[in-house]
C-alpha cells in the first residue's frame, strides 16, 4: 500500500513538473495591447510550438502531400505569397484572393479577408479543406499523421498522448502561428527611443497619423475591423468581402483592414493583389477612391497628397520592416525535426 502511494505521488510529481517545466509564458511587446487569444485554453510549450512548426511546413496536410502552409505563407515575405495577385494551391489551382500575411495573430479577433473564421484554432481548417488550396479533410490528415513515423512521438512529447486528434493538431498549428510576433522594426525602436526617424520618415509619420492611422491603428497598424476602402469591384471575381459571411448589405465590399507591418515585403497588395507597388496603393487612396454606399467614413473626404508627400509616406512605411522577424531562425523550415524522422 505504501509503495503504491509512493509510486502515485512520484507519478503526480512527474506530471506536474511536465506541465510547469514545459509551459511558456507568451511575451507581449511593451507597447502592444492585451492579446485576444485565450492562452489558458491552449498554454504554450516548446514541444507544442515545435510540433506546430513541423505541421506548418509539412505538405502532409494536403491531399497530394505537395502543399504546405508555407507554400502560400513564406517567411521572407512576412508569411504571405509573393508574386501572385491571387494565391495558388494544389495542382496550381488559383484561389480567389491574395493570401494574407501572418503576424501578430494573437491580437486578431477574426481571420481571413472577410473575417469568416472566428478563432485562430479554426483557421487552419479552411486552407486544409479548400479544393484549390490543400483539398484535404482534417479526419484524413489525422489518420495520415497517426501512421507516420514522426508525428505520434511529437504529439506525445507535446500533449502527453500519442493518439492524434483534430483538436491537438489545430492547437499545435495555432501555437506556432502565435509565436509569429513582429514588434522590432525601426518604427518600434524609434518608439522605444533607441533610434530616430530621418527627416523624410518623420514627415511621412506625421502624414500617416493624419490620413491613415484611423484604420491602420498603432501599434498593430490595424484596427482589426472591416472597411470598404473604395476599390472598384473586379467583375472577374465579384468579391463582396464581408457580405459573403454576414449576408448583410451594409457589409458589402468590406474587407478586413490588414496590418502594415512588413508591408515592404508582403506585396502584392489588397484582397485581390491588384497593386504590385506601394506607390500604386498610395495613388489609390489619393486619386482612385470609388464612391459607393458602404465606403468607409474615414475615406469620405479626399486625401490630398503632393508627389513628395506620397514618397514621404512610403519612406515611413518602410520603417515598419522587421528584419529580426523576417529572418528569425525560430520560424525557419524545421530541418532538424524532419531529418530526425528519416534517421529512424
Amino acid at each position, binding site marked *: 500500500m505504501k509503495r503504491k502511494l509512493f509510486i502515485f505521488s512520484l507519478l503526480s510529481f512527474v506530471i506536474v513538473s511536465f506541465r510547469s517545466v514545459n509551459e511558456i509564458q507568451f511575451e507581449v511587446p511593451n507597447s502592444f495591447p492585451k492579446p485576444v487569444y485565450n492562452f489558458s485554453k491552449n498554454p504554450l510549450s516548446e514541444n507544442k510550438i515545435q510540433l506546430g512548426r513541423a505541421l506548418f511546413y509539412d505538405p502532409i496536410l494536403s491531399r497530394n502531400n505537395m502543399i504546405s502552409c508555407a507554400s502560400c505563407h513564406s517567411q521572407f515575405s512576412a508569411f504571405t505569397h509573393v508574386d501572385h495577385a491571387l494565391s495558388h494551391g494544389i495542382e496550381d489551382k488559383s484561389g480567389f484572393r491574395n493570401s494574407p500575411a501572418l503576424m501578430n495573430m494573437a491580437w486578431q479577433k477574426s481571420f481571413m479577408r472577410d473575417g469568416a473564421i472566428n478563432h*485562430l484554432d479554426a483557421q487552419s481548417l479552411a486552407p486544409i479543406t479548400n479544393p484549390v488550396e490543400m483539398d484535404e479533410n*482534417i479526419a484524413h490528415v489525422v489518420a495520415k499523421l497517426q501512421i507516420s513515423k514522426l508525428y505520434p512521438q511529437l504529439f506525445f512529447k507535446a500533449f502527453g498522448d500519442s493518439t492524434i486528434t483534430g483538436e491537438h493538431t489545430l492547437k499545435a498549428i495555432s501555437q506556432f502561428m502565435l509565436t509569429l510576433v513582429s514588434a522590432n522594426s525601426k518604427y518600434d525602436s524609434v518608439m522605444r527611443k533607441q533610434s530616430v526617424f530621418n527627416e523624410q520618415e518623420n514627415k511621412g509619420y506625421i502624414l500617416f497619423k493624419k490620413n491613415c492611422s484611423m484604420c491602420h491603428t498603432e501599434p498593430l497598424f490595424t484596427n482589426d475591423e472591416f472597411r470598404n476602402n473604395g476599390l472598384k469591384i473586379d467583375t472577374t471575381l465579384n468579391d463582396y468581402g464581408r457580405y459573403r459571411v454576414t449576408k448583410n448589405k451594409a457589409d458589402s465590399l468590406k474587407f478586413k483592414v490588414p496590418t502594415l507591418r512588413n508591408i515592404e515585403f508582403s506585396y502584392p497588395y489588397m484582397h485581390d493583389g491588384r497593386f504590385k507597388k506601394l506607390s500604386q496603393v498610395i495613388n489609390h487612396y489619393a486619386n482612385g477612391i470609388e464612391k459607393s454606399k458602404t465606403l468607409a467614413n474615414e475615406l469620405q473626404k479626399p486625401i490630398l497628397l503632393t508627389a513628395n508627400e506620397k514618397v514621404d509616406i512610403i519612406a515611413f512605411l518602410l520603417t515598419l520592416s522587421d528584419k529580426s522577424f523576417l529572418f528569425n531562425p525560430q520560424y525557419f523550415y524545421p530541418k532538424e525535426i524532419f531529418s530526425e524522422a528519416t534517421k529512424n
Partner: protein
Amino acid sequence: MLLSFIAFTNAINAQSASTIGFSFAYGSRVLNIDDSLNLPNDSTFLRITELKFYISNIRFLKNGEVVLEEKNSFHLVDANQIIPNQILVENKQNIAFDEIKFDLGIDSITNVSGAMGGDLDPTKGMYWTWQNGYINFKLEGTSQLCKTRNNEFTFHLGGYQQPYYCLQTLHFKTNNSSTMNFKLDVQKILNQVDLAKTNHVMSPCEEAVILSKIVANAFNLLQN
C-alpha cells in the same frame, strides 16, 4: 466481459443515472440509413444516407426550476451506428424531476472558443471550414423529387450568430423516469419541405433557421 458491462450500465441506470436514447423513424417505419424506404404509393424512391446531430446542454427540471445539469454536455448522435445512441447522465442523489430540456446544436460561446475535443473534435465531420462553426444537424439522402446530381438532397443546418442562429431548445414533460427514449420522425421534416425546390441548405441562412425549427418539432418522447 460484455455481459458484465451491460450489467454494470444497468446498475447505473437503476440507481444513479438517467438514460436518454434516440431512435429514428419515417412515419410508422423504422428508419435505416442507406435503405430505400419503398413507401407505398410513392414513386420518389426516398433514401436517407446520413442523419447526425448534436444534443447539448442537457438539464432536468422540477416545477420549472433546473435541478440537475450535465457538465460538458455535448453529444454527437449518429443514426448510422450499430450501437444504440444512448446518453447516460449521472444522477447520484436520485434528484426527482418532471421535465427534461436539451439543445439541438451547439451554443454560440462554444462556436467561438476554438478547437475542441471529444464529440466536438472537427474530425467528426460536423464542422464548417470556409466559414467556421459547428453543423448542428445533418440530413442527407436521395429522392426522385430532387432534380439534382444523383437526385441528392443535403441539409447541413447551423449558424451561431443572429439573424441566423439555428440552435433549438427542446423540452418535454416526463414522469421522473430513469429512461427516456426520443424518436425523431424524418417524415415530419420532409413533409414540410418541397424537395423539388429546397434541396441544398449548407450554410447559415434563413432557410436553415426555418428548417431547424421544423426538425425540433419532429422529436417525440416515447411513453414507456
